[in-house]
């Protein structure tokens, strides 16, 4: 399973765009990239998933370069409620049943 590396923490201000990058140099051909958000004392919550290029949904965008060795989660115009830990996971979405969380990035949004 591909290991992931993310910044431990980031600070931002309300209304700014936040980009969190995850490195996954050993990503395999079948691996997808998935991002989760976790608030204190809650279970992680799915944000977005992608395989290559760009994926966008109502809350975030995910940018994946051609070599897929990294990915960037982009949160547009963050608010205080986006303060959370963000995890990048890499793994096949079928045929494997072991999704490993890294240490995550603790995002703090300031007023």
């Amino acid at each position: 399973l591909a290991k992931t590396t993310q910044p431990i923490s980031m600070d931002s201000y309300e209304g700014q765009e936040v980009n969190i990058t995850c490195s996954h140099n050993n990503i395999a051909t079948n691996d997808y990239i998935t991002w989760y958000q976790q608030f204190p004392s809650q279970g992680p919550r799915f944000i977005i998933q992608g395989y290559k290029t760009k994926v966008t949904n109502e809350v975030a965008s995910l940018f994946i370069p051609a070599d897929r060795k990294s990915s960037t989660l982009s949160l547009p115009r963050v608010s205080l409620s986006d303060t959370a830990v963000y995890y990048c996971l890499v793994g096949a979405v079928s045929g494997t049943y072991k999704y490993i969380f890294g240490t995550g990035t603790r995002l703090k949004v300031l007023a």
Partner: protein
Amino acid sequence: EPEVTQTPSHQVTQMGQEVILRCVPISNHLYFYWYRQILGQKVEFLVSFYNNEISEKSEIFDDQFSVERPDGSNFTLKIRSTKLEDSAMYFCANTRLAGGPNTGELFFGEGSRLTVL
């Protein structure tokens, strides 16, 4: 939106006691997981379960842990003889059958906080 339900939300137990944590997965999901999170630390994989058997387990999931799906709906995690270091939040998660958009999305419950004294 369908939910994963976990009980109890908080359990306090004495060291050496047996604990059973319960999870009601989303009804059409087929892959089940337990994770734990010690306070202030990352989410750690314990075990995955499919077709009534363990698919993968971590080194944390030793002989004192067991999982089962006794009645086809509930999914349980048993800790046979709790230790102080078992104090953590335990999360149940499940995924749909592979295929389709967002395949492999883990749906987590709200967790069961276990405190071992």
